[in-house]
């Protein structure tokens, strides 16, 4: 079957498919965004997966969890099981490792990934995941969306796709993470209610993230390395480079200097 399967993506280059198949991808969060990513990765031909999510499917996910059926939600099937099932239905592989837990509770497999897709819910979680990926020299592709509504005004839908590349600007450098935002988020800890989430922006952001990963591995666009921080405006359906990029200073990232990699080293005092 494999001779025809990828014939339509031969533009990725002579070694492109092999490069995709060699890579180990980690996906943290198998919800609305991660579900799309897993599915697309399988279609594109990735073979090696490390999947993290502690939750099971439930009815509130069904409006957006593309890897789940009604029966799955009723049964509360683990999202990582659903993801594995979807991968294997599309692409036979022996190398789908699932971790029905927080990545923080079993981090070693994640450190072995070549690329990590971050599909987590909070700024604080992004900070943790980015710190780990920087420490172990792993490119992190982060996606997320949100919907805000002030009073009677129309809801505003936004989102982002960020490539945090070791050696390049981090999410703090890009202004996406900031102490003020983390502080406000910490204040709201425990506030009741789920955040608004819908399927179509997750699809846009996830597809873009997979495209970034494929380009990283195959270099099919033959483009120069660049900082990727895309801002999604759901109200008008655009995904554009964030204006912040115009003001990005060409200095090394001060938050993750090159020598601060590997298992942490504490200085004895």
């Amino acid at each position, binding site marked *: 079957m494999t001779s025809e399967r990828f014939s339509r993506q031969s533009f990725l280059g002579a070694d492109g498919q092999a*490069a995709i198949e*060699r*890579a*180990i991808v980690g996906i943290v969060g198998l919800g609305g965004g991660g579900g799309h990513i897993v599915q697309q990765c399988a279609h594109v031909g990735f073979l090696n997966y490390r999947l993290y999510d502690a939750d099971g499917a439930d009815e509130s996910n069904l409006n957006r969890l593309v890897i789940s059926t009604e029966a799955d939600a009723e049964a509360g099937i683990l999202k990582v099981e659903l993801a594995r099932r979807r991968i294997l239905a599309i692409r036979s592989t022996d190398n789908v490792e699932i971790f029905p837990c927080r990545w923080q509770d079993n981090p*070693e*497999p994640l*450190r*072995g990934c*070549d*690329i990590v897709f971050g599909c987590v819910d909070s700024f604080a979680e992004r900070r943790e995941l980015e710190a780990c990926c920087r*420490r*172990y*020299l*792993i*490119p992190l592709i982060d996606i997320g969306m949100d919907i805000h509504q002030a009073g009677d005004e129309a809801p505003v839908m936004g989102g982002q796709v960020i490539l945090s*590349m*070791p*050696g390049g600007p981090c999410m703090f450098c890009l202004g996406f993470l900031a102490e003020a935002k983390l502080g406000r988020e910490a204040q709201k800890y425990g506030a009741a209610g789920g955040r608004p989430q819908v399927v179509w922006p997750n699809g846009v952001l996830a597809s873009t993230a997979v495209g970034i990963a494929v380009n*990283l*591995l*195959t*270099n099919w666009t033959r483009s*120069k*390395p*660049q900082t990727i921080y895309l801002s999604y405006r759901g109200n008008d359906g655009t995904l554009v480079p964030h204006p912040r990029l115009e003001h990005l200073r060409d200095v090394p990232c001060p938050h993750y200097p*090159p*020598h601060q*990699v*590997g*298992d942490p*080293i504490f200085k004895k005092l």
Partner: protein
Amino acid sequence: MSVHVRLTRQLYEQVRADLSRLHPFASERVGFLFAQLGNANSVTPLVLFTGYSLLADDRYINDPQAGARIDSQAIRSAMQEVLNRKEGAFHVHMHDWHGKPRFSRMDRTELPRLIPSFQAVGLSFAHGLLLLSKDDITAAVWLPGNTQPAEADHITIVGHPLQVFERQRT
């Protein structure tokens, strides 16, 4: 056990650019990469390169039998860097052809002799050897406390493009 090696593309290209320079008499150049260890106590240790030291032209010994022969001062300097950086040292050189690089007979005889010196000043670090070809890379890694190397079976150049070199585990 599966040993992974990673370095940024920026560092990789810095190394390639240096090793590609012509030397007045040596047919190959040598440098030293330095690395931290990650996942140290797991079945998938990670060697994560942080920096590179090139060798000045006058650190080479004119030996027609060898692609490159370096003097004892070069080795002492590398050992000092292990102490200063608190990182492992990897001898790196390049063979000027395509495909998977293979250590020559002389490489296999001579280069492992460096490792005990590095281990003497940095017992808790991984040390080793890196060999580049025009389009490939291989690494032999002495994990802390080991007298025998493990071949890295997954080497990633981290950047754009992201390049993964994989070896079949035997």
